[in-house]
């Protein structure tokens, strides 16, 4: 079922103004805390009334400020997974899920059993929510929502209250369940890793507005604005002056990095002399081994810098290189074994290569 919305609402200074349309797919609404993500879900579902705009499910207008249409929550047939699940504390797992089944249809018991096995809750039917772990509660709430056969599924930070290990398993569960019940789904998260893993399509939201919406690869590797680049963890965002253009590439100068060459599709080139932003993801930067003869592919954009800090993050290390005379820092993310093998310690000066195809120039 297609979902389209175009809604606006003001809370004093804070203003939400978003419009999107999606079909039977999973869209991740990604953005920092306080960006208005939950509020958008509440406006789509009818819990909060937008000041103006419209919400359309399939061909049915469930909200339209122009014509005064406002379907009550119960008639919208929207599945909503609350951040803390909102399981009914006085009902067992079975009763919670069965409560979602429309009483008019037969075979309620069979359906509840099917959902219980789909969400790996077999054996826990008679438990009350207070007797469940976080992950079990989340799956029970999801099963209850699916039992009502929603046309659209809205998931509000479904994994935020769970341990790291449980999260990974449940993300895989969610994708499996989404394949079994291909419902148009919006998932809200502020977790970058989660957004990348779950969203084939991602909309980046900031300050009540959609900064960029599109395919995962577009958003992650071709951010439309500096803010998007920042939110998706690009980290290395610099400004420079366009010095040359042509042959599918752009030449940018930056006081600390020097001359940088980047690929640039024909037609979207900025004017020579104009100022642009460009970025490269930390994991896309190559470290050049001291003894290695440079081959032609990595001859461009060789930068020398001193390692000034290093922070470990599980399987990878983030190194910060001080480059040039200013205080520009370049973040490089490397697997731990590479750091060990090349003995990359603080104080060492190393050379890195920013490959042309990995540099993205932000037009705005």
């Amino acid at each position: 079922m297609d979902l389209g919305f175009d809604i606006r609402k003001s809370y004093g200074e804070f203003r939400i103004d978003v419009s999107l349309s999606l079909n039977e797919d999973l869209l991740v609404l990604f953005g920092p805390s306080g960006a208005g993500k939950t509020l958008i879900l509440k406006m789509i579902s009818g819990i909060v009334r937008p000041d103006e705009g419209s919400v359309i499910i399939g061909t049915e207008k469930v909200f339209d400020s122009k014509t005064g249409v406002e379907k009550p929550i119960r008639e919208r047939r929207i599945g909503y997974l609350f951040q803390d699940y909102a399981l009914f504390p006085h009902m067992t797992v079975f009763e919670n899920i069965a409560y979602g089944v429309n009483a008019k249809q037969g075979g309620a018991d069979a359906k509840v059993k099917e959902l219980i096995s789909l969400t790996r809750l077999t054996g826990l039917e008679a438990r009350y929510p207070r007797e469940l772990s976080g992950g079990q509660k989340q799956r029970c709430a999801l099963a209850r929502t699916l039992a009502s056969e929603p046309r659209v599924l809205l998931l509000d930070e479904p994994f935020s209250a769970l341990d790291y290990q449980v999260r990974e398993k449940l993300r895989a569960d969610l994708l499996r369940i989404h394949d079994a019940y291909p419902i148009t789904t919006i998932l809200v998260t502020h977790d970058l890793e989660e957004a990348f893993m779950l969203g084939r399509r991602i909309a980046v939201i900031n300050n009540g507005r959609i900064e960029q919406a599109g395919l995962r690869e577009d958003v992650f590797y071709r951010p439309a604005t500096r803010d998007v680049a920042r939110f998706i963890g690009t980290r290395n965002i610099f400004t420079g002056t366009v010095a040359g253009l042509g042959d599918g590439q752009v030449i940018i100068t930056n006081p600390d990095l020097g001359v940088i060459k980047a690929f640039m599709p024909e037609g979207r080139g900025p004017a020579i002399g104009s100022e642009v932003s460009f970025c490269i993801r930390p994991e896309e930067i190559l470290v050049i081994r001291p003894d290695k003869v440079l081959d032609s592919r990595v001859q461009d954009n060789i930068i020398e810098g001193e390692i000034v800090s290093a922070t470990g993050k599980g399987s990878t290390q983030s190194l910060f290189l001080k480059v040039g005379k200013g205080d520009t820092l370049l973040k490089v993310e490397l697997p731990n074994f590479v750091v060990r093998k090349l003995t990359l310690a603080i104080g060492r000066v190393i050379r890195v290569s920013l490959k042309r195809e990995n540099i993205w120039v932000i037009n705005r």
Partner: protein
Amino acid sequence: MDLYPLYLTIKVSFTATVFTVAFGFILAWVMAKREFFGKAVLDIVIMQPLVIPPTVLGYYLLGAFGRSSFLGRFLEDAFGLQIVFTWKGAVIASFISSLPLFVKPARAALEGVGSELEDAARLLGKTELQVIKDITLPLAWRGIVAGAVMAFARATGEFGATLMVAGNIPALTQTLPIAIYDAVQAGDAQTANVLVGVITLFSFIVLYIAGRFTKGRF
């Protein structure tokens, strides 16, 4: 010994409590779940009987239901209903004075059921009545029962307003608290002692029951 006051007190209190719970539940629900203009004022009006002297309350009720008032005349002309100096007057006095004791805990209990749970039920396609029946009431019933017990206890002890509205007519409007007053005035210590004993024991039982209900929660 005349047990009529005991019988009348139970009859009046029970009837008053039925009205208190029915009317009070709607009030408590509206106060807990809806925002509207004048809510703060309505709250103060509902709570008035807790703080104004019962005689003042009785005076208001006399003014409202007496024969010289519009409402009193209307009830008598249209339905043949006489309020003042009948046991019905005692019911109204008890109803009004016990209403805040019911509304306060009932409202708190209803507010305690988070709007998220109710929204979750609405999202599953349930109507407002189903939400109340399946979610709100099962989670708030302890507070509501506790409030009803408190209201019943307050109604059995109602004195001042009842005396003003229903009077002190033996075998007609003389409730237990008024009978105690009468017995003391007449120097009948034996009757007074028995009646006082009955009502003290009763109050203990009521508060114990109310305490039991408010304890456990989901």
